[in-house]
């Protein structure tokens, strides 16, 4: 099994590299005999999540993330890594279920300090998401299925876009700490686990892109404004070599806001979705 896998994987890689990514060089990647874990990278993400109500059932999902990475001299915040814009139109089916469909424009900065390639390249995605929110006693649980269709390119000059799909599932829990329910002035803790798989021609031996384990502590300022901060550990196979795993520790800071600019008279019945 392993033999067969190895052969086909190597052949695939070589074929792909020959046809579509000549700039990646002629070297064939060889899987190590044991998985190798790279040194963890330290990162800081500052994320804003906007959820702007536009009608009784529709909302605009607007997220902007600023992702920093360590440099040799500065842990966590040494350099900008990505600026990430995620937008979608969401549909509230019920209190327990909503879906979103939209696009992402991510600006990737070249964080390889030694690289002479381009400093900045864009990355495009189309994404859709299906989220279930289920209360369990005073705790809220969430299942999030997110599928992304992603076009990326390397920093090298004239590098071509490659297309991959990402398959993401996240399970998250929010536990109120100083209250029996969620309301303003509630502090909650939110552990979450997300598994990100990828597929595509270029994905040969590394379908497990990322496993993210995060815990944040949040504080609800008002029903429309919440802040949270926490730490995330993640690991996943590198695309180049499925035997090599990247790791990271990320400090995450989140700002959640959900303004509602609708007229008062339109707002009134909107809270009962099942009406």
């Amino acid at each position, binding site marked *: 099994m392993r033999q067969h896998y190895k052969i086909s994987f190597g052949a695939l890689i070589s074929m792909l590299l020959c046809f579509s990514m000549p700039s990646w060089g002629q070297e064939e990647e060889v899987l190590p005999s044991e998985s190798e874990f790279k040194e963890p990278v330290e990162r800081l993400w500052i994320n804003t999540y906007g959820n702007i109500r536009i009608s009784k059932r529709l909302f605009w999902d607007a997220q902007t993330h600023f992702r920093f990475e360590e440099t040799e001299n500065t842990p966590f915040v040494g350099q900008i890594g990505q600026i990430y814009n995620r937008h979608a139109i969401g549909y509230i089916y019920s*209190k327990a279920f909503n879906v979103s469909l939209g696009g992402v424009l991510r600006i990737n900065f070249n964080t390889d300090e030694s690289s002479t390639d381009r400093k900045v390249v864009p990355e495009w995605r189309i994404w859709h998401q299906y989220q279930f929110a289920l209360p369990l006693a005073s705790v809220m649980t969430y299942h999030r299925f997110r599928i992304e269709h992603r076009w990326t390119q390397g920093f090298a000059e004239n590098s071509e876009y490659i297309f991959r799909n990402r398959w993401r599932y996240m399970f998250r829990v929010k536990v109120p700490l100083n209250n029996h329910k969620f309301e303003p002035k509630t502090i909650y803790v939110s552990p979450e686990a997300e598994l990100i798989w990828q597929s595509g021609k270029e994905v040969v031996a590394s379908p497990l892109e990322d496993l993210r384990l995060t815990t944040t502590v949040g504080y609800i300022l008002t029903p429309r404004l919440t802040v949270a901060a926490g730490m995330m550990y993640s690991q996943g196979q590198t695309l180049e070599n499925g035997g090599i795993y990247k790791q990271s520790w990320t400090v995450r800071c989140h700002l959640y806001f959900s303004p509602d600019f609708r007229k008062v008279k339109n707002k009134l019945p909107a809270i009962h979705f099942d009406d």
Partner: protein
Amino acid sequence: MLDMRVTLPLQRIILLWLLSFPVLLSGQEKLQYSGPLQLGKFKGEAAYDYKLEGNDTILDGPFRMQRSSLQALLENEDASFSFSGNFENNYPDGFWSFLFGEFQSDSESQIVDYQYRVKISGIQNQAKGNIRQGRPDGLWEYLIQRIEDSEVAETLFKSAITFEGGVPQKSFRIENETSTLVGRFLRNGLAHDIWSLYSDSDSRTSENWYFNEGWLSKIEFEENGEVLVSQIYEEPTGSFKVLSLDSGYLQILKLKLQQADSLSFLSRGIPALLAENAANYKKIDNILSGLGRSAFLPEFKVKAEHFPLDSLETARMDAIKGLYQRSVAISEPLLNNTQLNILRRSDEQAQFLHAVVSAISSDFLQPLQQLVKYAELDVLEFVPRDQLISGLWPNGKPGTRIRIDSGEAGEAPKVFTGPNASQLQFGANNLQSAQDMARYASISLDSIAGVLNDKLVKDQRQQDFISLEEQMIAQVNELNKHIDSVSSLLPSDEREALSNIRALAERRLNQYSSLEENSAKIDYARASIACFTDLKSLSESISKGPERLEVIQEKYQDAVWNPFIATIMNEEVKKRITAAYRKVLLPYFLDKAKEDLNCDNAKALGDLMDSTYERLLELRDESTSKLERKLRKEQDPEMILQLFNLPATDKVN
């Protein structure tokens, strides 16, 4: 020639026609009315002719008015009537017929000759005859019958009298169920010969009045099988006057007969039948005089001795009437005063004076009342004065000294003597002595009322104090109980405010008890009662504070969907308004209650707290963005109240 003959008459006709124009215009046009009309208790449909003179309606021509309701008859009872006759220049004139009655029906109907027939039962009045210039003329019949199943069951009353221009003539006959009166008049209407009353049961006469040209010489009547004779005017001398045989004349007879053994016949027999007849004629007169001018009266004439009043006597009579009315206005309230009736049981003087008032009332005022009544009936001038006056006090006149027995054996009676008693003598039987008595009664009552009213006022005040004090104590107890029951549950500011209210009430009560008993103290008590009511209501407003704040905070919540938690959360809205209430107004109110409270501002403060709360509840649903902007940084409670559109706080200060 031929042409002339034809044209001349035509010209004349045109000329006559033109000349007649002004005559037609000035002549009065007859108008007709047909529609609803109300005449005393009769209400129905009328049709009549009339003319207008200025703004006056002058009835002239046929008149007809009627009513009957089958529906009313079948449901319960119908008062139907039908009047018809004729007017001439507003006077009833010509043949008149009156029919009225009240009927019931058993609601059973039958069809006879293509008509529904319903049998009725009831009483029917019927009168008919001629009228000339508003007065009866010719034979008049008045008939009252009891109808049963549409048939006459019994004649209750019947009178047949012949008139000439309103003056009764010849013989007449008046009967009711039990007796019949027969008598006659001279041509001038004066009663003459024997008027006899026959009892229907044995057809014997039971009463005879002997008239001679209007003079009633004697009355014979039977009582218990015995015939009694009363002589009235046996041999009249001196001046006389012709008058109607009415209640006034009967009163004169009573006065003349007052020494006689029995007067009771004057309320039955002939007088009763005459009165019944007069009452029935009055019914017709009421109808006719409601429409036009009429004098529809029996007008039976009699003569009586005449003793005219001179001007001095007339003045005395007026004075007596005035003094009598004044005295009754004093004595009646005193005798009927429940407070005095209780007070006199414990107060000897009050008891004595009350008895004096009672004695004055029975010995002076009641006879004087009779005298006043005689004057009103105009009978004074038909009875000799001394006979009249002495008749008023058959047991002798009282003196100026009014003796009151103590009621206990062996104790001498107490005597009341009114002001000016020594100058008065009541001995003479004339109007002067009656006037003296009236004056004496009046001034005596004045002096007694002065004493008794003082006593009553004092007693009333005493009772007022007791009831006011009871009320005040109950109020303060109630207030303290309320404060005790709520204080432990309240924040300290509210608690302090309540204890200040309690202290104010106690101070007020202490102040009251240190006052001297006078009318100012009563006023103070009344003001305190009002004050305690206000303090109670203020303390309720204060103790409701935390509860109200909760209600407000609850009400100023908006349900908001939080998409990140996926839950609905309550959001506090219009925070500036609630904050102004919580942080500025409530402390302001409590400070007032703690430091600046008195009886004059307690009510205003309580009311302001209540209305502020009510206003807060209203503001939740109002558009307030402008107000909220103005509230930013506003810390002045008076300004905030103004922004909330609440009344000025002048009264609170």
